[in-house]
């Protein structure tokens, strides 16, 4: 099967009925073989293809959720995490630089630092990132660890419009509210629980472990979290802190392959993502981090950016060689629900590739099969 035949197949395979009214937005793809290339120029071209960064960020506070999953100490073959499972700091710096040039008033990088409530700067330094360079990339750069209260005085409550799948609302760090533009900067990866982790799944990390972590306080948040969210959110073995809205149906499935995609879709509805950037220059396949045994390093050599997370992830999933509309039981969603379809049903965006305007490099030319 040729690349074109493959793309035609996955585009025309309505395994589930698409939500006809789900919005569509353009997605840009660029080739970028290495982080030594001019990443800034590639990004600039992509933003232009999407209509220009200026109109999105000028005079605005921009919050960028990075993907830095797992402890910075855990590495794939001892390699810097930016070339394996984290977004690469060069891409982050280039984004800040371009946003600064486009007139962003404040650029706030956020991530829920794994098992820590410490300043995000510490986490970045532990990942081998040069914080001073990032601060110098643009005016108004700042950092926030969203795993706890951070620099805020209270949590912000995000209600899922029209009701959520698992929770009616989620309590998040103030940074997700005190912003005009919300950006999800993800890595092009498989995910053990969700099949793929892209701009949607990246936002599972919006959840503060202080409330949704395994050592979250029972009544109130634990502002010094030291665990992940596996027992609470993946498996539903305990409930989040009572200060946050409780689960809609505690008797629903406790299976991670059901829970995590539904929570991610809820979050995409509750805290909309305005801009997505996906780092597929170098990455890993087979899982999301070094704790997954079957991972391997890959070099897809692509960057993606878009203005709707479902559309962007649909294109990214196709670039990885999968159908973005594949049902549970089909790769890459072998043991889980398809997060993209759940978000589509929430009305966030369409997974229908025929409705998505792909700009720059066509999917067929960017195709890099994660399961060769």
């Amino acid at each position, binding site marked *: 099967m040729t690349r074109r035949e493959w793309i035609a197949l996955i585009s025309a395979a309505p395994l589930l009925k698409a939500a006809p009214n789900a919005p569509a937005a353009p997605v840009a793809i660029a080739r970028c073989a290495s982080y030594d290339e001019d990443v800034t120029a590639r990004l600039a071209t992509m933003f232009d293809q999407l209509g220009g960064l200026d109109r999105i960020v000028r005079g605005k506070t921009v919050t960028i959720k990075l993907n830095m999953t797992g402890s910075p100490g855990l590495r794939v073959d001892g390699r810097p995490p930016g070339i394996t499972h984290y977004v690469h700091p060069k891409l982050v710096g280039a984004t800040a630089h371009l946003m600064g040039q486009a007139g962003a008033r404040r650029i706030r990088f956020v991530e829920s630092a794994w098992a820590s409530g410490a300043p995000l*700067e510490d986490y970045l330094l532990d990942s081998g990132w040069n914080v001073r360079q990032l601060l110098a990339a643009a005016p108004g750069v700042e950092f926030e660890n969203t795993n706890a209260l951070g620099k805020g005085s209270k949590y912000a409550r995000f209600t899922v419009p029209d009701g959520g799948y698992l929770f009616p609302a989620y309590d998040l760090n103030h940074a997700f509210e005190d912003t005009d533009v919300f950006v999800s900067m993800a890595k092009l990866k498989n995910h053990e629980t969700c099949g793929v982790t892209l701009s949607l799944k990246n936002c599972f990390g919006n959840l503060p472990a202080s409330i949704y972590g395994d050592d979250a306080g029972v009544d109130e948040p634990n502002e010094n979290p*030291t665990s992940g969210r596996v027992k609470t959110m993946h498996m539903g073995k305990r409930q989040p802190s009572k200060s946050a809205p409780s689960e809609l149906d505690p008797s629903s499935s406790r299976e991670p392959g059901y829970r995590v995609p539904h929570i991610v879709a809820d979050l995409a509805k509750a805290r909309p993502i305005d801009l997505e950037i996906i780092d597929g220059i170098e990455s890993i396949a087979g899982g999301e981090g070094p704790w997954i045994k079957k991972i391997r390093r890959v070099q897809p050599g692509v960057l993606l950016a878009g203005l709707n997370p479902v559309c962007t992830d649909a294109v990214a999933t196709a670039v990885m060689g999968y159908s973005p509309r594949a049902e549970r039981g089909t790769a890459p969603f072998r043991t889980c629900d398809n997060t993209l379809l759940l978000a589509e049903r929430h009305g966030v965006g369409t997974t229908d590739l025929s409705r998505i305007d792909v700009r720059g490099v066509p999917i067929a030319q960017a195709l890099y099969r994660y399961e060769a």
Partner: protein
Amino acid sequence: MMLRTARWVAALAITPLFASVPPSSWVPARWNWSDPKTLDLLSGTPINCLLLESYSSEMAHRASERGIVTLAVLKPGADPAVPARAAIRAGIQGIVLEGDFPNGTAARVRDALADSHAVVVELTSRAHMPLGGPDPVIGTYQGVWPGIQVLDNGAAKAAPSGSPWIDTNSGFIRSVRAWGPAAVWLGYLPPPHTVVTGERYLAAISDAEMAGARWVVALDNDFSARLERGDPAAVKDWRGMTQVLQFFESHPEWRTLHSYGKLAVVQDPDDALLSGGILDMIAAKHTPVRAIPGQRLTSESLQGAKMAVDVDPNGLTPEQRQILKDFTRAGATVLTAPPGWKGQSALQPDQITLDKAELDRLNDIWHDVQTMIGHKNLGARLFNVSSMLSNVLSTEDGKQVVVELVNYSAYPIENVTVQVLGAFKHARLLTPEGIQKDLEVYTPDEGGSAVDIDRVTACASVRLD
């Protein structure tokens, strides 16, 4: 032949043994070769002391001509005084008693060799080391092979700290060195039936040197054979090893520096002489720590410290408990292990690491230690160093600080950040590869002084003034 031997012995007899290099400065290596030509491998290296399990007068003479001390290694068995005397007669300059000999053996051997002024070095089990004694060199044949623990599936084993766990002897060495100024030798061997890469040898050397001890260089059989026949890869690895040795030996002043840590761990030797204990756990978090033997706890030993962990409160005298009370009254924090925490399982005589039950037990106190330390800067904070260990030292007046970094991975580490308490104006990076580079010193938000290091291969040091 007899005549030649006699001439060599006569020559040695008039040589002022060890006149130029005291035992504390010996840089030891086990030498499995008997061919004197192999001594060429030592040209240009700092190795100046060979441990020989079999020896010849010719080897002893040739080594002596090069200023290299030779020591005969004797193991438990028959009375070692007899072979010790024979070794000295053959021109060997000292004896290593390796293993656990019956009590009094070392003294008897020293008496037997009194006329020759030969030095006797004991490489005992850790538990039998003569801590705080008069010997210029104390050592052990036991040690963990330094490196990142790897699971069967090839993944790194995570530590309680969430980082890959690094096997190290550095906590043990800190504990031993807290007893006195004796040079400390670690005489453990490379792991058997294992391919030992050059990087692992560098880690073995650096692991000991970073903490102020010396690993007795010991090559596995495969490496020895390849080196002897001049295999380029083996020669390259050997050069790398001697380069690292030279790096540390070029800075003898580092051995005289004090721990810059504001955190003290008060421990008795039973625990302190194990690897993988509380000292190593704290070191894995790159929190500078000073080891204080319970028996040597004084108010002076806590000078400058802000926190202390009392691992065995029942082992302290009433006076020592009072010292800790006074320490807390002065504003410091003391974390005391819970009652009955210690002594729940007996250590085996040959045990040098904690077993699972002890590790589980230690996790209780470790959690409290982590909470107490938090993200405070207790001397230094280091970033992007999960596959590294460090030691932070200072001159007595605190005007100069040296941060030693050892990389236990097979890859160079890039973008390391070091934040040190105190205001320093100058920083200089030193590496075994010969890099000597001034680093920009800047002030992080939390105060103190910070530097960024581009790359650390096997090890590196940063000197701040």
